[in-house]
């Protein structure tokens, strides 16, 4: 297993999925922000996870608990020894978020469909509206693996000592936009980025069709951005979904051990009282008091 390139263990092609549609060990899971996408057609056999209602606590801003996650996966008919293949819209942002989430709760074999829903559609591969019901399971999750999740205090402590990587678009990083441009821009928090964070938009890691770039190109991408790949790294974006995509690249494809996703991301940092913020294209430094 350790001889298998990381990419082949965590990423599957659309051809692989078509060849495994009848494989009982494989569970396809579609994860979207726009949850109506699944109703309009999904890959045969795929169950749906709703990024918001299934994976977020309904009251406070946090994940569902270990017990809630176990109930969710049991109800969806996902077993501990299933190969879970995630895919979705938005270039797999929320599928990558779910991948990180499944990893956080210790699922043994979870993979991403390279290119997600978009690549599948652009290839004109078949989708179905058939409702999928799987028999219930008794899923058992692990405790959250905090080694891959950063909270705001971890980020504060990392200022000046660890890599921070902001994977939003250059306009969001500089403070000209507060959200991805497919969303209205009225937001309560301040614009800008966390001082010292380098800007490597998530999209640089993917081609137009949503598939990941080759490993060698990915390594050059982060090195040229000034990221010291030997240091601990925290990735963030606006709500932690695009940075889950970059976390997947750094931790899963490139095999870097000490990479965390800060799911509080800009919607938390940009609302905190008293924390430093940098505006403009430069990373800035910790002593900035502007």
């Amino acid at each position, binding site marked *: 297993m350790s001889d298998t390139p990381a990419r082949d263990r965590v990423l599957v092609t659309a051809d692989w999925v078509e060849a495994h549609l009848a494989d009982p060990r494989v569970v396809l899971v579609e994860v979207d922000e726009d949850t109506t996408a699944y109703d309009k057609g999904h890959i045969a056999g795929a169950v749906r996870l709703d990024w918001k209602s299934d994976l977020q606590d309904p009251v406070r801003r946090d994940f569902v608990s270990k017990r809630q996650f176990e109930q969710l996966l049991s109800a969806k008919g996902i077993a501990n020894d299933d190969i879970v293949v995630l895919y979705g819209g938005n*270039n797999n942002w929320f599928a990558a978020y779910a991948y990180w989430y499944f990893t956080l709760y210790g699922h043994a074999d979870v993979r991403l469909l390279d290119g997600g829903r978009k690549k599948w559609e*652009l290839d004109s591969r078949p989708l179905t509206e058939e409702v999928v019901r799987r028999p219930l399971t008794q899923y058992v999750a692990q405790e959250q693996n905090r080694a891959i999740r950063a909270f705001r205090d971890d980020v504060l402590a990392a200022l000046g000592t660890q890599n921070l990587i902001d994977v939003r678009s250059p306009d969001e990083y500089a403070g000209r936009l507060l959200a*991805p*441009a497919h*969303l209205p*821009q009225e*937001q309560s928090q301040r614009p800008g980025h966390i001082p010292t964070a380098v800007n490597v938009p998530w999209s640089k890691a993917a081609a137009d*069709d949503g598939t990941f770039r080759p490993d060698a190109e990915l390594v050059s991408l982060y090195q040229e951005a000034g990221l010291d790949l030997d240091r601990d790294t925290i990735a963030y974006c606006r*709500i932690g979904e695009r940075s889950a995509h970059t976390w997947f690249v750094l931790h899963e494809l490139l095999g870097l051990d000490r990479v965390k996703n800060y799911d509080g991301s800009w919607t938390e940092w940009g609302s905190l009282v008293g924390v430093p913020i940098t505006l403009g294209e430069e990373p800035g430094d910790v002593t900035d008091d502007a």
Partner: protein
Amino acid sequence: MCGAGAGGAAVGGGVDLATATIIEGVVRRGEAPVEGAYVRLLDATGEFTAEVPTDAEGQFRFFAAPGRWTVRILAPRATVTDRPVSADRGDRIHLEVALDG
């Protein structure tokens, strides 16, 4: 903050049209609107900024900022189409995109 779906005709959600910079349009194949085309918004350096699938009426919409942009359209069986756009604050720019495939 949710609703990453396709752009529609009415701008809701308390958006101030006087200060917003909206780039929107319709993708068609012949006369027929194309649902599920992928429309990407690239900034002045060519970097990805956003992407939406078109809705049942072929419509898409971005909430951008003043500046130069490129709207790129990807659809099955069609060549990739790029449309340059220059937008100012308060603009609501409409594009009609015809696919060749």
